[in-house]
């Protein structure tokens, strides 16, 4: 847990695939007081240019929710969504960049790519959350976050809609906590205070 008055965490990266939407909505609803933290959501989805995910998340929070544009500034109190068909990278603590290179784990955006990039930039000031999914994406990324001194959360595979993805991470690295999907939001709220 954070010591002192201010949380040491400045960014939370959340990765999910099949069966993760419910947990994401609950997390977004729970953390709206964390105005000093930036959030990034990476979800495997189709290429469509629609705004359904942005609209859904917006309906849960007073924080700004938006899909990342190239070289967009990273602002606290904002929930950023990785755009479909691009990998989302961090140039430094202040700027995102996008990359349309080869898919990783059949996925673009890939959770591993963003997790690794955020770990390099934020180190111990980063929280990584890996949710339900049927793909091995995110496991190596969560290990990168742990290795860089960040805090890691995996959804409980036994009760996740698809437990494969968080289980891969748990097998690969010692995650900080394993939580039920519905409890992650409340836990984060306390962690980020």
């Amino acid at each position, binding site marked *: 847990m954070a010591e002192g008055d201010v949380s040491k965490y400045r960014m939370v990266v959340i990765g999910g695939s099949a069966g993760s939407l419910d947990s994401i909505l609950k997390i977004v609803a729970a953390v709206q007081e964390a105005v000093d933290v930036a959030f990034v959501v990476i979800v495997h989805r189709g290429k469509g240019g629609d705004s359904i995910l942005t609209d859904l998340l917006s309906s849960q929070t007073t924080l700004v929710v938006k899909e990342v544009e*190239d070289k967009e500034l990273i602002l606290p109190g904002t929930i950023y969504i990785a755009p479909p068909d691009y990998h989302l990278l961090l140039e430094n603590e202040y700027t995102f*960049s*996008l990359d349309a290179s080869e898919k990783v784990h059949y996925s673009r955006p890939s959770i591993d790519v963003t997790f690794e990039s955020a770990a390099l930039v934020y180190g111990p000031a980063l929280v990584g959350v890996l949710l339900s999914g049927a793909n091995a994406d995110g496991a190596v990324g969560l290990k990168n976050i742990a*290795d860089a001194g960040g805090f890691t959360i995996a959804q409980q595979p036994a009760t996740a809609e698809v437990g494969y993805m968080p289980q891969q991470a748990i097998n690969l690295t010692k995650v900080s906590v394993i939580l039920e999907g519905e409890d992650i939001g409340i836990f984060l709220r306390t962690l980020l205070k």
Partner: protein
Amino acid sequence: MHDKMENSVKDEELDLLLDELFRSYGYDFTNYARASLKRRVSRLMIIDRFPSFAELLYRVRQDPAYLTRMVEELTVNVTEMFRDPQVFKTIREEVLPILATHPFIRIWHAGCATGEEVYSMAILLDEANLLHKSLLYATDLNPTAIENIRKGVFPISEMKQYSENYILSGGKHDFSKYYTAKYNWAKFDDRLKAKMIVATHNLVSDRSFNEFVLIFCRNVLIYFDKYLQDNVLTLFDDSLEKLGFLVLGSKENLRFSPIARKFKQLENRERIWRKVM
């Protein structure tokens, strides 16, 4: 600080490599966005099995023949036909009717990699009966990638996706009429290629070479830092005739660039701008 992530290339190492590529070979990657470039170098170290960064650097210094591969792998050459079909639909419906009034249509596909977009555009022009008075300049810094444009050959495995994209772009024909299948490859109609001019061009160091009515540069600027983006956008402004069109990638924007005041985005919010001043 995070030295446990030994797979990643460090900033100092990247600087050494970029310096070498510039001094020995004249390729200037210094204003490329670093996060992506680091991933490319790390990836190259894995696929070409370099045990350390020092080994990679040694190879670059000692083996000029390796340079071609290096440039090919540092740049991203992922592209597809009719990528973001709505953009091509807008070009069909709103841009081509305007171009049709011109006696001659000169188009530049800047950083077009293996040329899927150029062929897509040639098909659009053909269907609008404009191909006969058009020229499509296809350029990339990567000589291997553009070689493919001259061949006009693309993987047959992609044709299902491209055919779907083509229909979504407003295409009315059977997409397969544009190519002949040979083993694992689709060879596109030479008629399309006849109107293409293929050349290497480096957006970092080469200048404007003609005046165009339409410039495509999609998902290239994302690999550049803000400084280089502004330079390249100015190059496009210099290369575009008044009332010409500029097409960028779906997450790229003119908004904060020095040329923004001279351009107006199309009403439907697709990433197409018209040069109004």
